[in-house]
């Protein structure tokens, strides 16, 4: 009996070794088949690509008619495949849109997108290859801080500008790089600023005096929560309950019973979608009725959020960088192009698509302003200019941090309304929140 168990253990171990070995091989090989398939979204014929690779790198000499080659490595497979695929769609939508409207400086855009399988080493190798072997004119960033941090170093080494769609963690900006530009409205931890500003601007007799913070253990949500706690406690609003839960938590009844017992005026949730729904349901069951409620993510995904909590959405606040109906530069065109290329409805478009599209918009305007694809000139320009994008006007500081702001949304009726900040508001906020 015992020997059988040992045999089993050994065979499992061998099997898993085999599996990982195969997996490793697959990862390194993945970019190969992806390469010829990559430019399908653009109309660049394979023949011109062959020609171009044999010529001298055309980084400074902008010869008209020759396509501008832009490379990126994205997590198209592996654990980040979902946002990675969305970012890929964003890049493809942008390239198709630009090419149909005459290209940049009269040149078409040709994308080369490699799959890094959500692996840092593969991503680094991909950018090395794009710059030194494929000799692309420009590179754009991968998805998430995890991959942006190592790959931006590669771009810096070769003097390439690195506009990226999804790396906003503090570690992205504290390495002294001057070639990196984060194409979202603001760093992640500043997301709740429009909300705290709204709360602090309330008249004294309506202002909440206590608040609770219930957050998932995640660098993004905790960063946002730190910002909220600092801003509200500094203004004299008392933090009466501060709880962090594991990301896989699904049952919030114990937390909600404690919150209900303390009955704070304001509830601030550091959430993704599922836990925002779970928290609200648990607060309802516990009989807790706050005067205001804010959740980081969840309310900004209208379909699933409404499905999850129904009419309890009324009056709930959240921040958002982009939504399909936003009246920002080229947003309507992007939405239409996306639906044309990938089907579905405007409401299904992930925010990551818009963030990748923003990267393209920023690059295009910078190229048009400098009149070339010279990376050094582009980097200089990107630190100075302001760019019209689907997430609003963007500019960057010396570390590449964006100088824009998130929007504040509030659920009113069957959907949400942008209620701040200032000139971007499309409606008045409701305060206090009706009972849920």
């Amino acid at each position: 009996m015992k020997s059988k168990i040992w045999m089993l253990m050994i065979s499992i171990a061998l099997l898993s070794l085999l599996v990982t070995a195969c997996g490793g091989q697959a990862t390194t090989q993945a970019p190969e088949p992806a390469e010829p398939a990559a430019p399908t979204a653009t109309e660049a014929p394979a023949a011109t690509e062959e020609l171009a690779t044999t010529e001298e790198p055309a980084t400074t000499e902008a010869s008209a008619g020759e396509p501008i080659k832009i490379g990126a490595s994205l997590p198209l497979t592996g654990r980040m495949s979902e946002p990675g695929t969305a970012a890929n769609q964003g890049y493809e939508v942008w390239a198709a849109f630009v090419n149909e409207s005459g290209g940049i400086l009269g040149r078409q855009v040709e994308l080369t997108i490699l799959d890094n399988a959500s692996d840092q080493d593969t991503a680094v190798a991909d950018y090395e290859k794009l710059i030194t072997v494929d000799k692309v004119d420009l590179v754009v960033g991968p998805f998430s801080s995890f991959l942006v941090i190592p790959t931006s170093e590669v771009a810096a080494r070769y003097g390439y500008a690195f506009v990226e769609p999804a790396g906003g963690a503090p570690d992205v900006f504290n390495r002294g790089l001057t070639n990196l530009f984060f194409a979202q409205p603001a760093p992640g931890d500043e997301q709740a600023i429009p909300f705290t500003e709204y709360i602090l601007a309330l008249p004294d007799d309506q202002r909440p005096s206590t608040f609770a913070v219930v957050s998932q253990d995640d660098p993004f949500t905790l960063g946002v929560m730190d910002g909220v706690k600092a801003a509200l406690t500094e203004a004299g609003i008392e933090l009466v309950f501060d709880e962090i839960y594991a990301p896989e938590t699904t049952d919030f009844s114990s937390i909600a019973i404690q919150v209900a017992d303390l009955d704070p005026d304001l509830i601030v949730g550091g959430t993704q979608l599922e836990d925002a729904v779970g928290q609200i349901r648990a607060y309802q069951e516990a009989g807790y009725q706050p005067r205001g409620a804010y959740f980081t993510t969840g309310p900004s995904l209208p379909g699933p959020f409404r499905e999850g909590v129904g009419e309890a959405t009324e009056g709930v606040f959240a921040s958002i960088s982009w939504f399909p109906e936003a009246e920002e530069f080229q947003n309507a065109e992007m939405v239409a192009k996306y639906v044309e290329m990938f089907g579905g409805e405007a409401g299904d478009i992930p925010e990551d698509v818009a963030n990748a599209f923003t990267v393209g918009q920023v690059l295009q305007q910078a190229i048009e302003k400098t009149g070339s694809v010279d990376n050094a000139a582009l980097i200089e320009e990107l630190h100075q200019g302001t760019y019209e994008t689907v997430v609003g006007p963007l500019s960057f500081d010396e570390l590449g941090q964006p100088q824009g702001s998130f929007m504040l949304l509030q659920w009113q009726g069957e959907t949400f309304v942008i209620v701040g900040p200032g000139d971007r508001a499309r409606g008045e906020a409701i305060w206090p929140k009706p009972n849920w």
Partner: protein
Amino acid sequence: MHLPSWNVLIQVTIIGILTGGVYALMATGLTLIFGVMRVINIAHGAFLILSAYISYWMFTAYGLDPFLSVMVSVPILFVIGIIFQRYVLSRVKGDPGLGVLLTFAMALTLEGVMGSLWESTGRSIRTAYTSKVYALELSDLTVRLPWVRVGGLVAAAMALAAIFLFLRYTNLGRAIRATIQNRSAAQLMGVNVERVQAMTFGIGLASVAAGGALFSMIWTFNSGSHEEWISKMLSIIVLGGMGSLPGTFLAAIIMGVAESVAAVVMTSYLSPIVFYLILFITLIFRPQGLLGIKVREG
């Protein structure tokens, strides 16, 4: 660690008991299957999520209440159970290790299939009575009883009673219990062990189907959720004594309360650890579980 008020403690204890009832229904099939087959069905969590998805799908497509959609999911899972046991698991009989590996493969397969059918978004059914509560006034204390969880406990108790009566008073039930107690002796007495095993697997999955319907209204789930729940259910049946139905019920209530109370006395971050802490303590001091019997295996 901080001590919350009595109100909070009483309220979380009650929620813990209600939740424990649903845990009991979810874990019953696992302990039955282990009792009869000596195989830990690692796919039990995946079947739980599958039945939750069936309820979710019936609800979104046809507006069918999860308390009613069990009439669909229970027979489906019963048949899947019999087929899986008869044509897959029985091929490796005599080697429980391989059986476990097979159920693990089944769990991964189901996860993949469900992931491609329903994507990775967390789902949960919201009926008209979701988040509705009975407020029970007891002098200065108000106890809030969520409808869904009370309904869950009642349904779980009914299903468990049915399984219990079935095992006690039917021939097949007696054959199952005989097989749990001593397989060889049961076989010598003329029990068709092959058939008993297939039926047990069917019943085991039918009970998890009922559990899944309740599950779908209380918690959010996606195709990957099964990993976390199989660990919880395993802890429950180990504490209860593997193969013991009353033990599973008792252990489920204990775990439900422990988890719920730990979340307010310590932090909710640490509360899942309570499950595994209890598991370790059980394995060290009472490896046969609360109501299990010590068995010597060769």
